[in-house]
């Protein structure tokens, strides 16, 4: 059995009277594709936000690659190796696709004001490396031809891909994707699936929130189901599909 990459211990999160997460514990192993599903409002995105440091949890802790994640420090979470995409795409709309990915390299590079102004050798080298890596990643997600277009001018599917490229640019150990197939058609979803499988092959662990049940069941090694903020099931896809609690949560068996 491979080693644990992420361990969430008893995470709680409330918004006023609403319980978004209650006592959620889960373990993600190195190298797997881990699915997180559940009806709308179940708390999936909230879990992502707690995980990536955007929300402060009301209880519990997260252990990532042996280190305790500091709450409310998203940039430190990124540095430790967790990258994410957003359910409502959050690109830098008035930057080019290329620049978006280059921003992703920020956390792995060092140039400061003096380097930027003086263009010393280290800075120019670093800048060239940033550009090269960004080109590679645009290629990797198949949108190299849109490199110089503003992100907001990209098609919806390309924006989703660009967000993944930007996330990959941070050299993550864990890539968390929040409904990447939302709004995609069949062909787009199929190629997204290939992309995610490729990412896993490259050694990056994937945490996937997805509504497209077929995609989740086909792609994930293990799946956890959230309902009203609680984890009601965690297992391999074939068993999750048969779990009565899951079927009930999805209102009478529409899951398979």
């Amino acid at each position, binding site marked *: 059995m491979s080693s644990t990459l992420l361990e969430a211990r008893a995470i709680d999160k409330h918004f006023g009277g609403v319980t978004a997460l209650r006592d959620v514990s889960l373990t993600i192993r190195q190298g797997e594709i881990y699915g997180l599903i559940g009806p709308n409002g179940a708390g999936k995105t909230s879990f992502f936000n707690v995980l*990536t*440091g*955007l929300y402060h949890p009301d209880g519990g802790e997260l252990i990532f690659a042996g280190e305790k994640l500091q709450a409310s420090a*998203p*940039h430190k*979470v*990124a*540095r430790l190796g967790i*990258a*994410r995409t*957003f359910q409502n795409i*959050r*690109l*830098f*709309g*008035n*930057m*080019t696709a290329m*620049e978006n990915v*280059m*921003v*992703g*390299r*920020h*956390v*792995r*590079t*060092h*140039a*400061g*004001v003096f*380097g*930027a*102004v003086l*263009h010393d050798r280290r*800075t120019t080298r*670093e*800048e060239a490396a*940033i550009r090269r890596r960004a080109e590679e990643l645009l290629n990797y997600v198949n949108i190299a031809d849109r490199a*110089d*277009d*503003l992100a907001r*001018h*990209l*098609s919806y599917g390309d924006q989703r891909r660009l967000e993944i490229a*930007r996330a990959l*640019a*941070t050299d993550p150990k864990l890539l968390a994707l929040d409904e990447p197939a939302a709004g995609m058609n069949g062909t787009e979803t199929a190629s997204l699936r290939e992309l995610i499988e490729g990412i896993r092959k490259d050694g990056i662990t994937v945490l996937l929130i997805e509504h497209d049940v077929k995609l989740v069941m086909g792609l994930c090694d293990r799946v956890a189901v959230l309902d009203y903020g609680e984890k009601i099931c965690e297992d391999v896809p074939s068993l999750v599909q048969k779990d009565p609690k899951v079927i009930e949560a999805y209102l009478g068996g529409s899951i398979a």
Partner: protein
Amino acid sequence: MTPSSTLETLRTDKRIVIAATVIIGIALAVLPFIIGSGLGNSWLRILNFALLYIMLALGLNIVVGFAGLLDLGYIAFYAVGAYLYALLASPHFGLHLPVWVIIPAGAALAGIFGALLGAPTLRLRGDYLAIVTLGFGEIVRIFLNNLNAPVNITNGPQGISGIDPIHLGGFTLAKPISLLGFTLPSLHAYYYLFLALALFIVFVTIRLENSRIGRAWVAIREDEIAAKSCGINTRNIKLLAFTMGASFGGVAGGLFAGFQGFVSPESFNLMESVMVLCMVVLGGMGNIPGVILGGILLTILPEIFRHGSGPVQLAIFGKILLDPEALRMLLFGLALIVVMLYRPAGLWPSTTRRREFRGDSTNDELKAGE
């Protein structure tokens, strides 16, 4: 576009850039002589002020245009630079430090003030940030107004006069400089100094814009949450924007004090902050050529209105109906409204520039629909 034609365009682009640089360089070099002999010294002074305002606008552009942080108290940094010069090079304290000490010190001190302003406002955005920065600008001005008792530091509302003119390597810029049988008038000398520093600031800004730091600023402007998730320490990067922007203001302030020979708190009121902000917004936030254009237009147009409206009224109506000073602000306000209505992104916004550079200004919709 085929690869070979792209290369072709690149090559012609390069030639055009070189040609343009040479032409602009010559134009900038002879400009003070043309204006000085054609329009007189008052316009030469206005030209020098345009250069100072370009520096200010470029500094504020880092905060507002790049990082997207609305700052209504920016003129405070200009004040810090100006007063530092006034205190370190005038009879007020009897200090007469050289300019190459004072200007960098002014940049540094203004930068520290920038960080001081930035630190408490890091969590604020939009309207709230605007209010706090506005307050900051006023506080600095009020301090300058009142720091004359119990110890007289700023000389209060009277301001500080008799400030040393700028000296450079044994020459004072206050008098005509004779060199190799050629005489350079004072205003011209100031022009070249200001031009050199303005070009330096343009250079620094361009370098910053195309750097890891510059991208981080724009990323914060575009989406702060996404920027954080990309690993950007938004607190530090925002503080850096405040500091850098403020330091440009400090440089301009020092030059202003040396040029003017006199500083007083009323030169640094809210209207001045608003004016610089207008230069940034009107020119095209975040786009360096646009901001420079904004700085030039908003320095020169009000002066044209001021100088021109009297004679024009005399010619048309035979008498002056409206006070030129009032008319100036009226026309200025009108111009702002018109520009914001018809070109909300400014006269020269950056996205247009990008598309122009690629030569496909019209087919964006087409491409999106491909």
